[in-house]
Protein backbone atom coordinates (compact mmCIF):
# COMPACT_ATOMS: atom_id res chain seq x y z
CA UNK A 1 0.00 0.00 0.00
CA UNK A 2 1.45 3.35 -1.05
CA UNK A 3 1.37 6.11 1.50
CA UNK A 4 1.95 9.78 0.85
CA UNK A 5 3.61 12.47 2.88
CA UNK A 6 1.14 15.16 3.98
CA UNK A 7 3.82 17.87 3.76
CA UNK A 8 4.52 16.98 0.13
CA UNK A 9 0.82 17.09 -0.61
CA UNK A 10 0.37 20.44 1.10
CA UNK A 11 3.22 21.75 -1.06
CA UNK A 12 1.42 20.39 -4.10
CA UNK A 13 -1.76 22.20 -3.11
CA UNK A 14 0.15 25.44 -2.86
CA UNK A 15 1.23 25.17 -6.47
CA UNK A 16 -1.70 27.03 -7.90
CA UNK A 17 -1.27 25.41 -11.28
CA UNK A 18 -2.64 22.23 -9.74
CA UNK A 19 -5.86 23.83 -8.53
CA UNK A 20 -9.08 23.97 -10.44
CA UNK A 21 -9.22 27.73 -10.88
CA UNK A 22 -12.40 29.63 -10.41
CA UNK A 23 -13.10 31.90 -13.35
CA UNK A 24 -11.97 35.46 -12.71
CA UNK A 25 -15.52 36.81 -12.66
CA UNK A 26 -16.53 34.29 -9.97
CA UNK A 27 -13.53 35.17 -7.84
CA UNK A 28 -14.57 38.79 -7.98
CA UNK A 29 -18.12 37.90 -6.97
CA UNK A 30 -17.02 35.49 -4.25
CA UNK A 31 -14.89 38.21 -2.70
CA UNK A 32 -17.99 40.42 -2.58
CA UNK A 33 -19.94 38.05 -0.33
CA UNK A 34 -20.39 39.97 2.87
CA UNK A 35 -19.96 43.36 1.17
CA UNK A 36 -23.50 44.74 1.27
CA UNK A 37 -22.66 48.00 -0.51
CA UNK A 38 -22.38 46.51 -3.99
CA UNK A 39 -25.13 47.64 -6.37
CA UNK A 40 -27.37 45.43 -8.47
CA UNK A 41 -26.12 47.02 -11.68
CA UNK A 42 -22.52 46.43 -10.67
CA UNK A 43 -23.19 42.74 -10.12
CA UNK A 44 -25.25 42.44 -13.27
CA UNK A 45 -22.53 44.02 -15.35
CA UNK A 46 -19.84 41.70 -13.96
CA UNK A 47 -21.92 38.61 -14.77
CA UNK A 48 -22.96 39.85 -18.19
CA UNK A 49 -19.31 39.91 -19.23
CA UNK A 50 -19.27 36.11 -18.94
CA UNK A 51 -21.76 34.82 -21.46
CA UNK A 52 -21.81 31.25 -20.20
CA UNK A 53 -22.43 32.40 -16.66
CA UNK A 54 -25.06 34.92 -17.74
CA UNK A 55 -26.90 32.18 -19.62
CA UNK A 56 -26.84 29.91 -16.56
CA UNK A 57 -28.15 32.64 -14.27
CA UNK A 58 -31.01 33.39 -16.67
CA UNK A 59 -31.79 29.71 -17.11
CA UNK A 60 -32.10 29.17 -13.38
CA UNK A 61 -34.04 32.40 -12.87
CA UNK A 62 -36.54 31.09 -15.44
CA UNK A 63 -36.67 27.55 -14.04
CA UNK A 64 -39.77 26.14 -12.31
CA UNK A 65 -37.74 26.11 -9.07
CA UNK A 66 -38.44 29.84 -8.79
CA UNK A 67 -41.64 29.86 -10.79
CA UNK A 68 -41.76 33.54 -11.77
CA UNK A 69 -44.81 34.23 -13.96
CA UNK A 70 -43.02 36.29 -16.63
CA UNK A 71 -39.80 35.68 -18.48
CA UNK A 72 -36.65 37.16 -16.95
CA UNK A 73 -34.42 38.26 -19.79
CA UNK A 74 -31.66 40.40 -18.31
CA UNK A 75 -29.09 39.56 -15.68
CA UNK A 76 -29.82 42.78 -13.82
CA UNK A 77 -33.50 41.82 -13.69
CA UNK A 78 -32.46 38.37 -12.41
CA UNK A 79 -30.37 40.01 -9.69
CA UNK A 80 -33.35 42.15 -8.67
CA UNK A 81 -35.87 39.30 -8.50
CA UNK A 82 -33.61 36.54 -7.20
CA UNK A 83 -31.61 38.75 -4.88
CA UNK A 84 -27.95 39.53 -4.93
CA UNK A 85 -26.97 36.63 -2.70
CA UNK A 86 -28.75 34.04 -4.77
CA UNK A 87 -27.02 35.28 -7.90
CA UNK A 88 -23.64 35.29 -6.16
CA UNK A 89 -24.36 31.73 -5.12
CA UNK A 90 -25.45 30.79 -8.61
CA UNK A 91 -22.25 31.99 -10.15
CA UNK A 92 -20.25 29.90 -7.70
CA UNK A 93 -22.52 26.95 -8.42
CA UNK A 94 -22.12 27.29 -12.15
CA UNK A 95 -18.36 27.17 -11.67
CA UNK A 96 -18.46 24.21 -9.29
CA UNK A 97 -20.62 22.43 -11.83
CA UNK A 98 -18.28 23.03 -14.73
CA UNK A 99 -15.28 21.95 -12.63
CA UNK A 100 -16.99 18.68 -11.59
CA UNK A 101 -18.54 17.95 -14.98
CA UNK A 102 -15.27 18.59 -16.81
CA UNK A 103 -13.66 16.18 -14.38
CA UNK A 104 -16.26 13.54 -15.30
CA UNK A 105 -17.60 13.52 -11.73
CA UNK A 106 -21.30 13.68 -12.50
CA UNK A 107 -22.23 11.49 -9.55
CA UNK A 108 -20.27 13.75 -7.20
CA UNK A 109 -22.10 16.68 -8.73
CA UNK A 110 -25.47 15.04 -8.03
CA UNK A 111 -24.46 14.32 -4.44
CA UNK A 112 -23.25 17.91 -4.00
CA UNK A 113 -26.46 19.28 -5.47
CA UNK A 114 -28.46 17.13 -3.05
CA UNK A 115 -26.46 18.45 -0.08
CA UNK A 116 -26.90 22.01 -1.39
CA UNK A 117 -30.68 21.66 -1.59
CA UNK A 118 -30.94 20.01 1.83
CA UNK A 119 -28.60 22.50 3.52
CA UNK A 120 -30.62 25.35 2.01
CA UNK A 121 -33.86 23.82 3.33
CA UNK A 122 -32.42 23.37 6.82
CA UNK A 123 -31.08 26.94 6.80
CA UNK A 124 -34.43 28.34 5.69
CA UNK A 125 -36.17 26.42 8.46
CA UNK A 126 -33.70 27.82 11.01
CA UNK A 127 -34.28 31.32 9.59
CA UNK A 128 -30.60 31.88 8.90
CA UNK A 129 -29.96 35.24 7.30
CA UNK A 130 -28.56 34.11 3.95
CA UNK A 131 -29.81 30.55 3.42
CA UNK A 132 -28.49 30.54 -0.15
CA UNK A 133 -24.97 30.62 1.29
CA UNK A 134 -25.72 27.17 2.62
CA UNK A 135 -26.71 26.10 -0.87
CA UNK A 136 -23.27 27.16 -2.07
CA UNK A 137 -21.44 25.50 0.86
CA UNK A 138 -23.32 22.29 0.16
CA UNK A 139 -22.37 22.44 -3.46
CA UNK A 140 -18.71 23.00 -2.67
CA UNK A 141 -18.31 20.80 0.42
CA UNK A 142 -16.61 17.95 -1.50
CA UNK A 143 -14.67 20.12 -3.95
CA UNK A 144 -11.43 18.71 -2.47
CA UNK A 145 -12.31 15.38 -4.10
CA UNK A 146 -11.88 16.94 -7.53
CA UNK A 147 -8.23 17.66 -6.71
CA UNK A 148 -7.63 14.38 -4.94
CA UNK A 149 -9.20 12.08 -7.54
CA UNK A 150 -8.79 13.97 -10.78
CA UNK A 151 -5.84 16.31 -10.53
CA UNK A 152 -3.73 13.82 -8.58
CA UNK A 153 -4.58 10.41 -10.05
CA UNK A 154 -1.53 8.80 -8.38
CA UNK A 155 -2.88 9.66 -4.94
CA UNK A 156 -6.52 9.09 -5.86
CA UNK A 157 -5.94 5.66 -7.37
CA UNK A 158 -4.02 4.48 -4.30
CA UNK A 159 -6.88 5.59 -2.07
CA UNK A 160 -9.46 3.86 -4.27
CA UNK A 161 -7.38 0.66 -4.34
CA UNK A 162 -7.04 0.67 -0.56
CA UNK A 163 -10.79 1.28 -0.19
CA UNK A 164 -11.60 -1.83 -2.25
CA UNK A 165 -9.86 -4.11 0.23
CA UNK A 166 -11.47 -2.47 3.25
CA UNK A 167 -15.21 -2.45 2.85
CA UNK A 168 -15.82 -1.08 6.31
CA UNK A 169 -13.58 1.93 6.04
CA UNK A 170 -14.91 5.18 4.66
CA UNK A 171 -13.22 7.16 1.92
CA UNK A 172 -12.51 9.89 4.46
CA UNK A 173 -10.73 7.47 6.80
CA UNK A 174 -8.64 5.87 4.05
CA UNK A 175 -7.64 9.30 2.73
CA UNK A 176 -6.40 10.30 6.16
CA UNK A 177 -4.61 7.02 6.66
CA UNK A 178 -2.73 7.16 3.38
CA UNK A 179 -2.07 10.86 3.02
CA UNK A 180 -2.54 12.42 6.45
CA UNK A 181 -5.03 14.70 4.71
CA UNK A 182 -8.64 14.36 3.64
CA UNK A 183 -10.72 15.80 0.82
CA UNK A 184 -12.07 18.20 3.46
CA UNK A 185 -8.55 19.53 4.22
CA UNK A 186 -7.85 19.95 0.53
CA UNK A 187 -11.22 21.66 0.02
CA UNK A 188 -10.29 24.02 2.87
CA UNK A 189 -7.03 24.88 1.08
CA UNK A 190 -8.97 25.55 -2.12
CA UNK A 191 -11.42 27.77 -0.23
CA UNK A 192 -8.44 29.74 1.08
CA UNK A 193 -6.89 30.04 -2.35
CA UNK A 194 -10.22 31.23 -3.75
CA UNK A 195 -10.60 33.75 -0.90
CA UNK A 196 -13.98 32.36 0.07
CA UNK A 197 -15.51 33.83 3.24
CA UNK A 198 -15.36 31.83 6.48
CA UNK A 199 -19.09 31.01 6.19
CA UNK A 200 -18.22 28.93 3.12
CA UNK A 201 -14.72 27.84 4.11
CA UNK A 202 -15.50 26.23 7.49
CA UNK A 203 -18.36 24.02 6.23
CA UNK A 204 -16.04 22.72 3.48
CA UNK A 205 -13.11 22.17 5.84
CA UNK A 206 -15.02 20.71 8.80
CA UNK A 207 -18.05 18.95 7.31
CA UNK A 208 -16.81 15.63 8.72
CA UNK A 209 -16.07 17.10 12.16
CA UNK A 210 -18.28 20.13 12.67
CA UNK A 211 -17.18 20.66 16.29
CA UNK A 212 -13.87 22.03 14.97
CA UNK A 213 -15.58 25.05 13.39
CA UNK A 214 -14.70 28.26 15.19
CA UNK A 215 -16.83 30.93 13.51
CA UNK A 216 -19.40 29.37 11.21
CA UNK A 217 -20.55 26.71 13.68
CA UNK A 218 -24.18 26.55 12.60
CA UNK A 219 -23.32 26.62 8.87
CA UNK A 220 -20.89 23.75 9.38
CA UNK A 221 -23.40 21.77 11.44
CA UNK A 222 -26.03 22.16 8.72
CA UNK A 223 -23.74 20.91 5.95
CA UNK A 224 -22.65 17.98 8.15
CA UNK A 225 -26.27 16.91 8.75
CA UNK A 226 -27.28 17.53 5.13
CA UNK A 227 -24.38 15.37 3.90
CA UNK A 228 -25.58 12.46 6.04
CA UNK A 229 -29.21 12.80 4.95
CA UNK A 230 -28.26 12.94 1.28
CA UNK A 231 -25.94 9.95 1.61
CA UNK A 232 -28.91 8.18 3.17
CA UNK A 233 -31.11 9.17 0.24
CA UNK A 234 -28.39 7.99 -2.18
CA UNK A 235 -28.81 10.80 -4.63
CA UNK A 236 -25.56 10.82 -6.53
CA UNK A 237 -22.48 9.05 -5.29
CA UNK A 238 -19.73 10.84 -3.39
CA UNK A 239 -17.25 7.94 -3.73
CA UNK A 240 -18.36 5.57 -0.99
CA UNK A 241 -21.75 4.56 0.37
CA UNK A 242 -21.01 4.47 4.10
CA UNK A 243 -23.03 6.84 6.25
CA UNK A 244 -20.43 8.71 8.32
CA UNK A 245 -20.76 9.16 12.10
CA UNK A 246 -23.12 11.94 13.14
CA UNK A 247 -21.99 14.71 15.47
CA UNK A 248 -24.57 14.92 18.24
CA UNK A 249 -23.67 18.57 18.86
CA UNK A 250 -24.32 19.39 15.20
CA UNK A 251 -27.61 17.46 15.20
CA UNK A 252 -28.78 19.39 18.28
CA UNK A 253 -27.88 22.71 16.65
CA UNK A 254 -29.92 21.84 13.57
CA UNK A 255 -32.71 20.80 15.94
CA UNK A 256 -34.94 18.55 13.85
CA UNK A 257 -37.64 16.48 15.51
CA UNK A 258 -39.06 13.40 13.79
CA UNK A 259 -41.87 15.06 11.78
CA UNK A 260 -39.55 17.91 10.71
CA UNK A 261 -36.93 15.38 9.61
CA UNK A 262 -39.50 13.53 7.51
CA UNK A 263 -40.71 16.78 5.96
CA UNK A 264 -37.14 17.83 5.18
CA UNK A 265 -36.33 14.51 3.47
CA UNK A 266 -39.51 14.60 1.38
CA UNK A 267 -38.94 18.21 0.34
CA UNK A 268 -35.27 17.64 -0.47
CA UNK A 269 -36.02 14.61 -2.67
CA UNK A 270 -38.76 16.53 -4.44
CA UNK A 271 -36.67 19.64 -5.07
CA UNK A 272 -33.80 17.50 -6.23
CA UNK A 273 -35.95 16.01 -8.96
CA UNK A 274 -37.00 19.44 -10.24
CA UNK A 275 -33.73 21.36 -10.07
CA UNK A 276 -31.24 18.79 -11.35
CA UNK A 277 -31.44 19.90 -14.96
CA UNK A 278 -31.23 23.62 -14.39
CA UNK A 279 -27.67 24.15 -13.25
Amino acid at each position, binding site marked *: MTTFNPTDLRNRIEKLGDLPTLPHVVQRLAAMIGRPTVSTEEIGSIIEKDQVLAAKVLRLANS*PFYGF*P*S*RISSVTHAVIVLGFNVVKGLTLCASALSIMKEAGMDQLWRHSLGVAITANLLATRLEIKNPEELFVSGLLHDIGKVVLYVKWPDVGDSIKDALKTRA*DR*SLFEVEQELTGLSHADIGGCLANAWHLPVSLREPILFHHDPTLAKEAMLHTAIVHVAD*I*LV*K*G*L*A*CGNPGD*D*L*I*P*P*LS*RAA*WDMVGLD*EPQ*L*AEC*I*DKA*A*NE*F*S*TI*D*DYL
Partner: protein
Amino acid sequence: MRRVVPYELLPDMVLAKPVVNANGLPIVAAGTILDAAMIERLRQMELTSVYVEGDALDSGGKTLAELEAELEHRFRQVVQDPIQQLILRTLRTHVRATHGMASVTEGPQAT
Protein backbone atom coordinates in the same frame (compact mmCIF):
# COMPACT_ATOMS: atom_id res chain seq x y z
CA MET B 1 -42.68 13.24 -8.58
CA ARG B 2 -39.99 12.67 -11.15
CA ARG B 3 -38.82 14.32 -14.31
CA VAL B 4 -38.75 12.36 -17.54
CA VAL B 5 -37.93 13.31 -21.11
CA PRO B 6 -40.93 13.06 -23.48
CA TYR B 7 -39.77 9.85 -25.17
CA GLU B 8 -39.83 8.08 -21.78
CA LEU B 9 -43.54 8.81 -21.30
CA LEU B 10 -45.85 5.79 -21.09
CA PRO B 11 -49.64 5.47 -21.15
CA ASP B 12 -51.26 5.77 -17.67
CA MET B 13 -48.50 7.99 -16.31
CA VAL B 14 -49.99 10.94 -14.38
CA LEU B 15 -48.71 14.50 -14.87
CA ALA B 16 -47.39 15.88 -11.57
CA LYS B 17 -47.06 19.43 -12.90
CA PRO B 18 -48.91 21.20 -15.69
CA VAL B 19 -47.23 21.32 -19.07
CA VAL B 20 -46.77 24.98 -20.05
CA ASN B 21 -46.18 26.65 -23.39
CA ALA B 22 -43.35 29.08 -24.18
CA ASN B 23 -45.28 31.91 -22.53
CA GLY B 24 -45.69 29.98 -19.32
CA LEU B 25 -49.42 29.30 -19.84
CA PRO B 26 -50.57 25.83 -18.77
CA ILE B 27 -51.82 23.76 -21.68
CA VAL B 28 -52.19 20.35 -20.02
CA ALA B 29 -53.21 20.25 -16.36
CA ALA B 30 -51.46 18.45 -13.54
CA GLY B 31 -53.28 15.22 -12.71
CA THR B 32 -53.93 14.39 -16.37
CA ILE B 33 -53.65 10.67 -17.05
CA LEU B 34 -51.66 10.27 -20.24
CA ASP B 35 -52.86 8.17 -23.16
CA ALA B 36 -51.06 7.39 -26.41
CA ALA B 37 -52.57 10.38 -28.27
CA MET B 38 -51.60 12.81 -25.51
CA ILE B 39 -48.08 11.38 -25.34
CA GLU B 40 -47.72 11.85 -29.08
CA ARG B 41 -48.79 15.50 -28.76
CA LEU B 42 -46.34 16.11 -25.91
CA ARG B 43 -43.53 14.55 -27.93
CA GLN B 44 -44.25 16.91 -30.81
CA MET B 45 -43.98 19.94 -28.54
CA GLU B 46 -40.18 19.73 -28.19
CA LEU B 47 -40.37 19.89 -24.40
CA THR B 48 -37.12 19.28 -22.55
CA SER B 49 -38.88 17.37 -19.78
CA VAL B 50 -42.21 16.59 -18.13
CA TYR B 51 -43.01 15.93 -14.47
CA VAL B 52 -44.93 12.77 -13.68
CA GLU B 53 -46.07 11.20 -10.43
CA GLY B 54 -43.88 8.53 -8.95
CA ASP B 55 -40.51 8.00 -7.34
CA ALA B 56 -38.64 11.27 -6.86
CA LEU B 57 -35.20 9.77 -7.28
CA ASP B 58 -34.06 7.45 -9.98
CA SER B 59 -34.47 4.00 -8.51
CA GLY B 60 -32.62 2.45 -11.45
CA GLY B 61 -35.28 -0.23 -11.89
CA LYS B 62 -34.67 -1.65 -8.41
CA THR B 63 -37.41 -3.22 -6.36
CA LEU B 64 -38.51 -1.77 -3.05
CA ALA B 65 -36.88 -4.69 -1.22
CA GLU B 66 -33.56 -4.01 -2.97
CA LEU B 67 -33.73 -0.30 -2.19
CA GLU B 68 -34.46 -1.02 1.46
CA ALA B 69 -31.61 -3.52 1.69
CA GLU B 70 -29.22 -0.95 0.21
CA LEU B 71 -30.46 1.66 2.63
CA GLU B 72 -29.78 -0.63 5.61
CA HIS B 73 -26.37 -1.45 4.17
CA ARG B 74 -25.37 2.22 3.98
CA PHE B 75 -26.12 2.61 7.69
CA ARG B 76 -24.20 -0.54 8.69
CA GLN B 77 -21.48 1.29 10.65
CA VAL B 78 -23.68 3.69 12.57
CA VAL B 79 -26.81 1.73 13.56
CA GLN B 80 -25.91 1.85 17.24
CA ASP B 81 -26.48 5.63 17.27
CA PRO B 82 -30.14 6.32 18.21
CA ILE B 83 -30.24 9.48 16.07
CA GLN B 84 -28.97 7.57 13.05
CA GLN B 85 -31.68 4.97 13.77
CA LEU B 86 -34.22 7.78 13.61
CA ILE B 87 -32.75 8.98 10.28
CA LEU B 88 -32.77 5.44 8.89
CA ARG B 89 -36.38 4.90 9.96
CA THR B 90 -37.47 8.18 8.36
CA LEU B 91 -35.63 7.39 5.13
CA ARG B 92 -37.24 3.95 5.03
CA THR B 93 -40.69 5.53 5.33
CA HIS B 94 -39.75 7.94 2.53
CA VAL B 95 -38.57 5.13 0.24
CA ARG B 96 -41.78 3.17 0.86
CA ALA B 97 -43.97 6.22 0.30
CA THR B 98 -42.28 7.13 -2.98
CA HIS B 99 -42.80 3.55 -4.10
CA GLY B 100 -46.51 3.91 -3.83
CA MET B 101 -46.95 2.27 -0.42
CA ALA B 102 -48.90 4.10 2.24
CA SER B 103 -46.72 5.03 5.20
CA VAL B 104 -45.88 1.96 7.18
CA THR B 105 -45.93 2.29 10.91
CA GLU B 106 -43.24 0.36 12.65
CA GLY B 107 -44.25 -1.84 15.45
CA PRO B 108 -43.27 -5.09 17.09
CA GLN B 109 -43.01 -7.93 14.61
CA ALA B 110 -45.94 -10.32 14.57
CA THR B 111 -44.99 -13.72 15.83
